[in-house]
């Protein structure tokens, strides 16, 4: 651990979802907060940083936790960081920068973050067609369920973050046509 902000590195979260330093500073004036950054440092000079405040002139004390990884373990290093962000810090998965996941080769693990929804749907349709031909031959595969599972997971996540979302969901299920009105 080291006091201060990380010197350089690629941030795990999308810039849009990170808080402005001035915004965070106003919090620490009232209470004694510490801004925490977690860094996976890869050999050869790439740091992947998880933090929820943009780098900048920050008035709060900042603490940086660093762990070194060899280059070949970039994949597991980033995966650990994402797991921490999503499971411990309860950051919605969609705030993660897809380019970082893509660099780490984690797109197979988080397809909906990396891929365009259209691509995911196309692949799902191909899978479904595949499955139909399989089932005609009498072979059953359970691989087509990943999108449904992924969607369920996202909805659950959404509900955890915002309980008001349950009400929205209930109304949509009651009357699906109401959802269409929103897009007109």
């Amino acid at each position, binding site marked *: 651990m080291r006091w201060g902000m990380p010197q*350089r*590195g*690629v941030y795990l979260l999308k*810039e*849009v979802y990170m808080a402005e330093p001035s915004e965070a500073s106003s919090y620490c004036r009232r209470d004694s907060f510490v801004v925490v950054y977690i860094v996976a440092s890869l050999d*050869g*000079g*790439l*740091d992947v940083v998880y933090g929820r405040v943009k780098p900048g002139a920050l008035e709060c004390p900042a603490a940086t936790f660093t762990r070194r990884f060899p*280059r*070949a*373990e*970039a*994949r597991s290093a980033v995966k650990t960081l994402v797991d921490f962000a999503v499971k411990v810090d309860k950051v919605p998965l969609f705030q993660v920068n*897809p*380019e*970082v996941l*893509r*660099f*780490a*080769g984690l*797109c197979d693990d988080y397809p909906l973050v*990396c*891929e*365009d929804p*259209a*691509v995911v749907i196309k692949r799902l349709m191909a899978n479904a067609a595949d499955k139909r031909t399989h089932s005609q031959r009498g072979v059953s595969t359970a691989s087509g369920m990943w999108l449904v599972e992924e969607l369920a997971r996202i909805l659950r996540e959404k509900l955890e973050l915002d309980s008001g979302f349950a009400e929205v969901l209930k109304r949509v299920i009651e009357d699906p046509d109401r959802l269409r009105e929103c897009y007109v």
Partner: protein
Amino acid sequence: MYINVLKPRVDPCIFLHSNVDDWLALLGYDFVRELVRRFRHVAAEVDDVARYILENPGIVSIGLRGVEVGGPYRREWRLFVESGYVEPRARARWPYTPNDESLDVRLQVSPCFLLATLTRDVGAVWRNRAASLFSWVSAVPRHKPLEVFREAFPLWLRELGWSHGYVWVAWTRWRDRRNRHLAEWLYWLDTGRMPHIDAIRGRAGAVYETAGRTKKPAAEGLYVSS
């Protein structure tokens, strides 16, 4: 301290250039070895790295973070390595052919710009300077852009490149500008290579082969040395 500086003889657009021999010749063995080392978790050798990068062009700058680059293109490389930005300008030079045709296609961004990290500002540049692109695709593709654009580009535009030649397309107008970026796109979609890198490698014939089809065939003798 300058021992480890890499000196590529080409700009970052090489990452969209699918010819691996050109990578070795222009980036140099040290650079390629460093690349393979840095992308070892997803690819085992140069060919795999090249394919992986061509399929996911937005990630190169992340992988290159911290590399020291010198040489004639150091300014562009530093910008790319440190902030993930590539200039959207067109790189290729096309022999002049008088041309007053105008195409109603606004595509004033080079395919190289796919390498730039897609921040909000970069997205704005895409929207403003490549407005026509978004009537063919809904968003800038971050995965397999070559395949996506090959499907997405309208056929009449591709045929324009085949029938009249890239040089002709480059000198057509869009409002008060020439369509030099568009010519780069068409060349890239057809060959998977960048025209200016082919020119550096002495494949001028491949780039300008269609010059003979233009309205000024004399230009061929002037510019094409094969």
